[in-house]
């Protein structure tokens, strides 16, 4: 018989929510541990994956939840990376936690600026504005070589040991677990924020901004705050990349990275944090494996993968799993 599952009472529903949070965190930690065991020589790659994951999570907020079209989100990531890198190499801010704070602050400012510009448009206009912004930022970093190192990149970043105890070792173990802890905290914080009234508003804006407005709520005010949060998350990703790789290159502030982040998000599934996480893992591992096999043609294979996902799982890998799961429940 086709019975709609009975809703739990309020308390039951709440428990359910926290249980899901706990499962999410446990899954992240388990995946990280498996990665640590299986790929002990590639911790640097995994750490880089996590810093990009933060960018994709940030993109998921504005694009996945609120429906803002952007191909320039690396601006926020790059702002965090350059701010943390410049702070460390030129101003002696080498404590890793302080570097994260600097990156988050720079990302927040970049988020506000990008948001203020991009939200003036709608749809395609937003897309074009976002590309313009990332290209401008890229050129600014390129020309301002006395500060940013230009096309040579920014080097001379030497983070202090974490808490004064754990050195960022050659094998990248400290950096890896530092990154894992950071992404777990960010994911938990974002889950809380996105199920708050504010998160509900953002989802509402994606589906019908006019209705939100006629409820007496400012659409652009809400989106600007979302951009600020997104900037913090992307900025943390940038700072993490500066800390773990000790260099910041122009590629962290590029259209390519922005577009790749969007591809990762679509692969994983938009509008849920799991999609951002899964999409990044698949993309980075796929890129890594395939580029070893075929250094010149790997992008073609990534393209084919994306086409397959768009054709057969339009709501991404997580959406595909959710569908398989629910169709089994609902005959």
């Amino acid at each position, binding site marked *: 018989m086709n019975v709609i599952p009975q809703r739990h009472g309020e308390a039951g529903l709440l428990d359910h929510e926290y249980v899901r949070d706990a499962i999410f965190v446990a899954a992240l930690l388990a995946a990280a541990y498996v990665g640590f065991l299986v790929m002990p020589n590639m911790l640097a790659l995994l750490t880089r994956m996590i810093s990009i994951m933060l960018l994709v999570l940030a993109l998921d907020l504005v694009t996945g939840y609120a429906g803002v079209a952007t191909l320039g989100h690396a601006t926020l990531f790059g702002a965090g990376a350059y701010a943390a890198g410049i702070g460390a190499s030129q101003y002696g801010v080498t404590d890793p936690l302080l570097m994260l704070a600097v990156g988050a602050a720079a990302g927040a400012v970049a988020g506000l600026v990008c948001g203020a510009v991009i939200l003036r448009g709608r749809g395609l206009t937003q897309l074009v504005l976002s590309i313009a912004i990332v290209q401008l930022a890229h050129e600014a970093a390129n020309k301002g070589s006395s500060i940013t190192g230009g096309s040579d990149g920014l080097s001379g970043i030497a983070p202090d040991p974490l808490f004064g105890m754990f050195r960022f070792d050659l094998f990248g173990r400290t950096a890896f677990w530092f990154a894992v802890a950071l992404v777990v905290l960010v994911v938990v914080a974002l889950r809380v924020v996105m199920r708050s*009234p*504010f*998160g509900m*508003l953002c989802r*509402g804006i994606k589906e*019908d901004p*006019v209705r939100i407005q*006629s*409820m007496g709520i400012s659409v652009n005010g809400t989106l600007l705050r979302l951009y600020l949060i997104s900037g913090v998350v992307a900025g943390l990703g940038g700072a993490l990349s500066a800390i773990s790789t000790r260099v910041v290159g122009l590629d962290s502030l590029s259209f390519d990275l922005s577009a790749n982040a969007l591809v990762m998000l679509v692969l994983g599934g938009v509008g849920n944090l799991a999609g951002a996480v899964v999409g990044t893992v698949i993309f980075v591992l796929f890129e890594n494996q395939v580029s070893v096999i075929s250094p010149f043609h790997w992008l073609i294979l990534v393209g084919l993968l994306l086409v397959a996902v768009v054709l057969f799982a339009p709501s991404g890998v997580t959406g595909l799993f959710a569908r398989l799961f629910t169709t089994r429940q609902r005959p």
Partner: protein
Amino acid sequence: MTALLEVTALRKRFGGLVVANDVSLSLAAGDRTALIGPNGAGKTTLVNLITGHLRPDGGRVALAGDDITRLGPTGRVHRGLARSFQVTRLFPSMTAEEHVALALLQRAGKAERMLGNYRRMPDIVEAAHAILGELDLLGDAQSAVRQIPYGRQRMLEIAIVKAMRPKVLLLDEPAAGISHGDTHLIEATINNLDPGLAVLMIEHDMDFVFRFARRVIVMASGKVIFDGTPQEVQRSPEVRSAYLGSYADDRGAA
């Protein structure tokens, strides 16, 4: 009685087309007024001008004595003006309960909170369930809107404006798109609205209009051509010719 909503000499043109030509009307607390007129008369435009979704070229809108002509749509909502839409504007993936909760959160000034879930706010949940219960929507409380039949979506549209507790309510064809047999559900809901609320309703179903309205305003080509009781409107020659053209008179003469 003092007017809650006062529209004075409102003008709007789209290029050469005058869609609001010196429109004036006023609503007092407890008013049940219908706005009728042929297609293209400028009824929805007038609603958009009153709610601030369109900027007028001239004229004045006042709510409870305050000039709100310069205010944007959200500012007007905060002053107590709410509207429903001719075609439902809802969030397809969100549940009925979430829609009503969002409206309640806005009124409580909690809509932009970044912490906590509305499900953990007993006052919001209770109020949402009370409103959904009044409109017989409790069964759909946890269903995403895209799974709710259209007629019940129209009811949800009214649930949202009820939750906003406005002083003035503009209903843009609340019964549009639902089968004739279900109109009575919408009608009962509208009859049960707070008696002190000033309601302006655009509607095409004349039987519904005559049962609902104590006053009827007729628009044609951007102008108010009649403002009076339902009994008078049926006898008005201007209204007859606006709806039926000179054809009505020809037949009358024959």
